[in-house]
């Protein structure tokens, strides 16, 4: 099967669908009071919600929004971790100890608890959730970066470069980074999958922008109130999240990399 050989195929297809589909569906905000809670059928392929809004349009737009906010959060986490590590590399040795202590402290908080604190600080909003999601996944990324750097430094050619007088920054960029790159990319994927779940969880708890916006976590929350009569309302966004995260995990699952992550 194609997805056995090309493990990223499901993810690519899903992302393409979510990027293109908004041009083919209706308005996710348009309400139709007479059509409320219509079961899936010809008019509404995925049914409609309590306000008669098209669940297909909302799921598609919500998916696009999830992709973008999870992407932005991943950029914050990865960029922030690289910046922090970069600062530590060019400053005196004591900096690394502080970074490790800070990382360990941040890792002590369960992700959702940490996220809720940041959201409280930024008083909610779409960007508050993105910032919270990014910061939640910052500390784990720093730790992976730190671990893989430590093991990359064991290499003979790194020691040789230092002995020849290469500066800290030069060693890091030219000798350590190429070794760490596969791990860093894989961890970025792990971060992306985690960011999807974290932002959906925060949305479900009532944070993140205006109430009517199509957002998967928020839609799950809305669905909870009507699930007795209309189980399709929570099902569409929930299955969307599951498929997206599964396809990211599946793309990551290529042999050794996966095993290494398990060990850590």
């Amino acid at each position, binding site marked *: 099967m194609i997805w056995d050989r090309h493990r990223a195929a499901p993810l690519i297809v899903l992302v393409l669908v979510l990027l293109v589909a908004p041009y083919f569906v209706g308005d996710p905000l348009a309400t139709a009071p007479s059509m409320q809670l219509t079961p899936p059928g010809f008019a509404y392929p995925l049914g409609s919600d309590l306000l008669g809004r098209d669940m297909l349009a909302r799921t598609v737009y919500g998916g696009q929004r999830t992709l973008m906010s999870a992407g932005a959060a991943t950029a914050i986490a990865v960029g922030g971790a690289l910046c922090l590590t970069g600062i530590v590399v060019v400053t005196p040795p004591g900096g690394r100890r502080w970074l490790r202590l800070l990382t360990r402290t941040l890792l002590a908080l369960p992700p959702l608890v940490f996220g809720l604190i940041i959201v409280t600080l930024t008083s909610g909003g779409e960007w508050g959730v993105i910032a919270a999601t990014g910061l939640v996944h910052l500390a784990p990324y720093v730790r992976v970066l730190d671990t893989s750097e430590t093991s990359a430094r064991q290499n003979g050619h790194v020691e040789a470069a230092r002995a020849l007088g290469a500066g800290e920054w030069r060693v890091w960029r030219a000798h350590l980074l190429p070794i760490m790159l596969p791990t860093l990319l894989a961890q970025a994927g792990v971060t992306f999958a985690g960011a999807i779940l974290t932002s959906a969880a925060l949305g479900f708890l009532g944070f993140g922008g205006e109430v009517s916006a199509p957002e998967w976590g928020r839609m799950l929350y809305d669905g909870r109130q009507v699930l007795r009569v209309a189980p399709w309302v929570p099902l569409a966004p929930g299955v969307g*999240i599951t498929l997206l995260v599964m396809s990211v995990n599946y793309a990551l699952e290529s042999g050794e990399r996966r*095993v290494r992550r398990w060990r850590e």
Partner: protein
Amino acid sequence: MRAIARALIDALWAGLLAASLLFLALRALPGDGLTHQLIESGASDDVIQARRASLGLDQPLVTQVAGYLAGLARGDLGVSLLDGRPVRDALYDALPHTLTLAGLALGVGLVGGITVGTAAARTQNAVRPVARLAIAVGLSAPTALIGTLAIVVFALWLDWLPGSGAGTIGHIVLPASVLGWHSAAAIGQVTAAALHDVYSAPYLIAARGRGLSSRRLLVHALRACAPTIVTATMLQAGFLFGGTAITEAIFARPGVGRLLVDAALRQDYPMVQGVALWCAGVAIGAALIGDALSASLDPRLRDVE
């Protein structure tokens, strides 16, 4: 012994740092739930100033941090900004619910995780792909979806168990299973990976060569995986006992997670701080216990710096 003492000191440092950071981060910001509430209720500036002064919010930041840490040492977590209730009392009221739920979920996670992990790594027939799919879905599906589906199927359609509230044994079965499923997937993933490695280790191949039954082999292998499983389980314990906001929200249960979400939505900083501190403490403690257990299971881990 020295390693344990050092780990303990490290943990204390991390806890102290977490407490100070939390306090500074939450206090450094302008505006708080109390001021919002008073402004909205139309109180005059004098009243607002007086209320802020009575809660110590007008003091310099350093004095506030020192006061908070001193209070912490006495077991005083401050009072809620909104109703003046001591944070400690609110936490005490919420804890029994969270502890029961988290304990049961951890049990489900441990038993389910080892079972499904073993199935994913060692079975040959149709069980294997099913176990792998269960792990993949468990790791990918948001708790909110699993919980909602569980309510629809078991509470609404089949009407076997109550779908919301707390109190009887029946009330806890669904939330504990939903929460435990996610932990089981995480523990199962680690178990499967560890078993996979152990089965290619020379001593196990030798044991197989000597003709040990596959059941005896599995016992050997699981013993060798125990430290890994313990570490993964303690990580889950840290998450679970720190409150389970989503599950508590879905099943309308009281608990620590619920307390945190409500406080965050109303910007009640002392409450957020107190609950977060409890979570950090539990996670640090669980990691510590996990390290100690792993060290007692695997002598090689004892001398590692």
